[in-house]
């Protein structure tokens, strides 16, 4: 069973890579070193400053974990990366974020940016539609209406999210009938179907049971071959298990950003150490 799944993923991933190549060449993504490079980012909600002078480079095909106590600005930072904060009343941003070499506030259309930078939320967010329509939503928005093409994208995305076998006979059922873990993987598939190159995940497993959590973590590790992943987690264990790099936020500041292994074995900052050894938070 697992073997089969793996091969399926393999083929799916291969396809995805093909497309990736096409897109990258088409969009002339430049040879930006990093997927995202963030410089001097400040963010305000009305008067209160939620992010303070963040500087950070996010590497391609890596998993970057964001950790820190509640309210430190992890979600805010994540949402800034694909400009979901545009929708928040009173939110102001200064500083610069480059996505594949282009300034996301000046040179990239926010809709197009979100096509390329997908997002998965803490609570699964299936639409009250059929499973098929959920996954096909992104492509449809992007103007694809050909039935066959859509069906192909849906199948491929569900395969990538390792949920095709569970759902292939139920594509026309409502997505609301799925279990929490299935819903979350469906949402990942939905994100993949929009053919992004980056996936942002905000505590994707915190509402899930241990077994579903395990599946999502495996999936993240699998996806990182083809995608850049940024994940917010409240579990230091999870950060340790899956991420390559870890960023530690505290009260809106980026306290430390380092390779995960180094961060957890020899934190260079006293606050980081206090946090990861559980002395607060």
């Amino acid at each position, binding site marked *: 069973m697992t073997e089969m799944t793996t091969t399926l993923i393999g083929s799916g991933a291969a396809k995805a890579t093909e497309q990736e190549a*096409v*897109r990258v060449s*088409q*969009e002339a993504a430049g040879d930006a070193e990093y997927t995202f490079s963030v410089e001097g980012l400040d963010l305000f909600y009305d008067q209160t400053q939620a992010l303070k002078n963040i500087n950070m480079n996010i590497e391609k095909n890596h998993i970057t974990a964001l950790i820190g106590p509640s309210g430190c600005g992890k979600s805010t930072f994540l949402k800034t990366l694909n400009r979901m904060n545009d929708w928040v009343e009173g939110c102001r941003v200064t500083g610069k974020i480059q996505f594949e070499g282009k300034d996301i506030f000046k040179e990239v*259309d926010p*809709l*197009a940016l979100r*096509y390329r930078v997908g997002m998965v939320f803490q609570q699964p967010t299936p639409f009250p539609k059929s499973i098929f329509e959920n996954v096909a939503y992104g492509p449809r*928005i*992007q*103007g*694809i209406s050909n039935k066959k093409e859509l069906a192909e994208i849906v199948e491929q995305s569900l395969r990538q999210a390792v949920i095709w076998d569970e759902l292939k006979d139920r594509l026309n059922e409502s997505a609301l009938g799925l279990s929490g873990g299935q819903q979350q993987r469906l949402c990942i598939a939905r994100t993949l179907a929009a053919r992004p190159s980056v996936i942002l995940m905000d505590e994707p497993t915190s509402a899930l049971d241990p077994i579903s959590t395990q599946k999502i973590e495996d999936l993240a590790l699998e996806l990182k071959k083809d995608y850049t992943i940024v994940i917010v987690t409240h579990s230091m264990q999870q950060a340790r298990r899956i991420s390559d790099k870890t960023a530690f936020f505290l009260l809106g500041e980026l306290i430390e950003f380092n390779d995960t292994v180094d961060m957890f074995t020899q934190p260079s900052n006293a606050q980081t150490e206090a946090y990861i050894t559980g002395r607060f938070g």
Partner: protein
Amino acid sequence: MINALALAVRRAHRNEKTARILITLCGIGTALVPFLIGAFLLLKGTDTFFVFHHSLGEFLFSGVWNPSDTAEGGGHVGAAMFLSGSLVTCALALVLSLPLCISTAIFMTEIATPRTRRLIQPAVELFTGIPSVVYGWIGLTVLVPFLRLIFPMPFGFSVLAAGCVLAVMIFPTITTMAADAMAAVPKTWREASYGLGATRWETIAHIVLPAAKGGIFTGIILGLARALGEALAVAMVIGQMKVFPTSLFLPASTLTTAIASDMGGAMEGGEYSAALWTMALTLFLLSFLFIFLIHRLNRASDLKGGK
């Protein structure tokens, strides 16, 4: 491919703009309707003062109602008896129904099991939809003869009959609003109160009712607005005698009943019709005042409740 995506983005932006404009127009347009109505009423209703040269004081406080049905005017337009008729019937309706409203709301939110609640709530909401003429008809054929039978009153048609009919009419409005407000009181407050050893009554009296105060008042005001605006049901039972409401057992008139019965026949452009339009304008201003009060009230409780 790149063109397809760029196209999709461009189309999305364009549709967005169109939709936003259309929808904003509809929103603003809807909001203009009451202003339009207000403007019309203002236009017609101020004739009493500017064309027929009556004073606002006369209209509001004089009891002499004898407008001439001609364009020359020269009559008297004291609408005080209609105003007081409206106010008295509304107040009576409130006095009659409020105890029932509050106890039903408390029963629904605090006492009833979910099953009972699921039965009672739709029943109460059903009340709201019952046409007012049906209330009026039953008032006319059942209530009025009944009242004549048990009270020493000459007609049966009376302020009391109008109050009873209105009380039944505003019952669902106030009850549902009050029940909603009580149900919206956070469960945590109740739990905290129980956790301190309070009984159900202590919790209701000290926590739930004070916290739901705003909603209950809103309900009362909406109920009053409904009572004030009801025309036909009241007209069917109040007797429409053009006198001040001096006794519960005697007929009287209200703003709405006077408009309903006389507007149809009053001469267009005459003093009589102008006076009736002024009464309609008064009703409009009163509803506006009610809504304003509700907002005031909610704002006040927001300030007190907010962080």
